[in-house]
């Protein structure tokens, strides 16, 4: 597709269940980011992938959060044993090469609601 694609667009899950959020970056983009936006908060950095390098996981809020990127393309963000405070919009962004002065393109996000 032409843009960054995220799925599902909305997800309601019960507390304690695991969820997987998917991001398809723009073809050819080597850098991929996950962000979280909670109600009334700014965008919170979660994790960053650049090519085949080890990801920067410094923003992950707890060990219940993990992410992988297969084949340098599609990425999955997994939240285990979800808590109500995990409710947020999860945004994925990609760019050609991060730090190279290129803009990041955002997906439409996944709205996660933990009940």
């Amino acid at each position, binding site marked *: 597709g032409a843009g960054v694609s995220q799925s599902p667009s909305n997800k309601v899950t019960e507390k304690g269940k695991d969820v997987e959020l998917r991001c398809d970056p723009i073809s050819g983009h080597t850098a991929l980011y996950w*962000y979280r936006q909670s109600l009334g908060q700014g965008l919170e950095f979660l994790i*960053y992938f650049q090519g085949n390098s080890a990801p920067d996981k410094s923003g992950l809020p707890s060990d219940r959060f993990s992410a992988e990127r297969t084949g340098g393309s599609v990425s999955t963000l997994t939240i285990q044993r979800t808590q109500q405070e995990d409710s947020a919009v999860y945004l994925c962004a990609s760019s050609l090469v*991060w730090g190279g002065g290129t*803009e990041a393109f955002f997906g*439409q996000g996944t709205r996660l609601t933990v009940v």
Partner: protein
Amino acid sequence: EDKVVQSPLSLVVHEGDTVTLNCSYEVTNFRSLLWYKQEKKAPTFLFMLTSSGIEKKSGRLSSILDKKELFSILNITATQTGDSAVYLCAALKGGGADGLTFGKGTHLIIQP
């Protein structure tokens, strides 16, 4: 700790007014400052500013960066109701690490 502070947090003006949104930053290894417009869920890119004192313009929007005083402003002239959105400012670090540090945004409401 890196931080980006935007002001005001919210702003209500009438259609046709001119608004100025502020963004200050304290970021190690600063490279560029980016402005985004966020409607609904996903931010859309507006400007990337790397050099100090050079204004970037796109229609009724313009922005400038001051790397000495560590701030940027986003101006919108002749505002329209379609300009209503959250405007996000983000600092990009050099070296390809850490990504963007975002401010909390300015919620702009344009009343007809």
